[in-house]
């Protein structure tokens, strides 16, 4: 399941719903991304997440489908917020449930790495020095590339 929303989400409720009544699930791995108060450029007071409505949903659905095709998952979830967020606020929740813990871990890790380089979101940080768009990091491409398979086309 994927969702793109302005509002916060309830991590416990989302995770409980994901495995409810499914007794084939042995492991549920989840990851929550939060707004930090420090950026490389200094203290941040808030950030605004812009996204591309339509393409965002499509990109997240593609990433989830890819995870489902690679690992034996019983359930998966991507929720990503947009709009204005403050330090400590939740940005994103990804989760994967599987009979075995390894598959749950790998799929969850894949979801957040892929999302980071493929989902059309952009962060504008408010620092003491004014608002600045966050630059993409090479390390994020490296993290996503680790999940690339030999038969994937280069981009």
């Amino acid at each position, binding site marked *: 399941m994927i969702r793109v929303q302005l509002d916060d989400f309830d991590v416990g409720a989302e995770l409980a719903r994901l495995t409810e009544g499914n007794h084939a699930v042995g492991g549920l791995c989840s*990851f*929550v*991304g*939060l707004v*930090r108060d420090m950026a490389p450029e200094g203290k941040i007071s808030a950030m605004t*997440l*812009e*996204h*591309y409505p*339509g*393409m965002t949903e*499509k*990109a997240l659905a593609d990433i989830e489908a890819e995870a489902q095709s690679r690992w034996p998952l019983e359930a998966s979830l991507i929720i*990503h917020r947009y709009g204005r967020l403050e330090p400590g606020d939740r*940005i*994103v929740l990804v989760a994967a449930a599987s009979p075995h813990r390894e598959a749950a871990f790998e799929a969850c890790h894949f979801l*957040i790495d892929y*999302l*980071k*380089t*493929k*989902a*059309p*979101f*952009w*962060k*504008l940080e408010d620092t003491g020095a004014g608002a600045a*768009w*966050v*630059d*993409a990091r090479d390390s*994020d491409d490296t993290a996503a590339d680790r999940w690339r398979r030999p038969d994937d086309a280069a*981009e």
Partner: protein
Amino acid sequence: MKVLYFAWVREKTGRAVEDMDLPAGVATVADLIEWQRGRGGGYADAFGDDKAIRVAVNQTHVGKSHPVAEGDEVAFFPPVTGGAP
């Protein structure tokens, strides 16, 4: 053709979306970027550094050699920065 701009590309062009006819001589994303640069002003600024721009055609990431056609939805934006640190 529907053209969209996001993040600092949007700020530099001064618009989020515009409808346009496919410009004469434009067959690929690279052609369209060159054409945008030729519009001058904020467009020249936004499209000045080809390498800093990412493109989606019909809501799918594409390379610069990808074709563009009348009726396409084309979006220009910086590398994405969602998710978590």
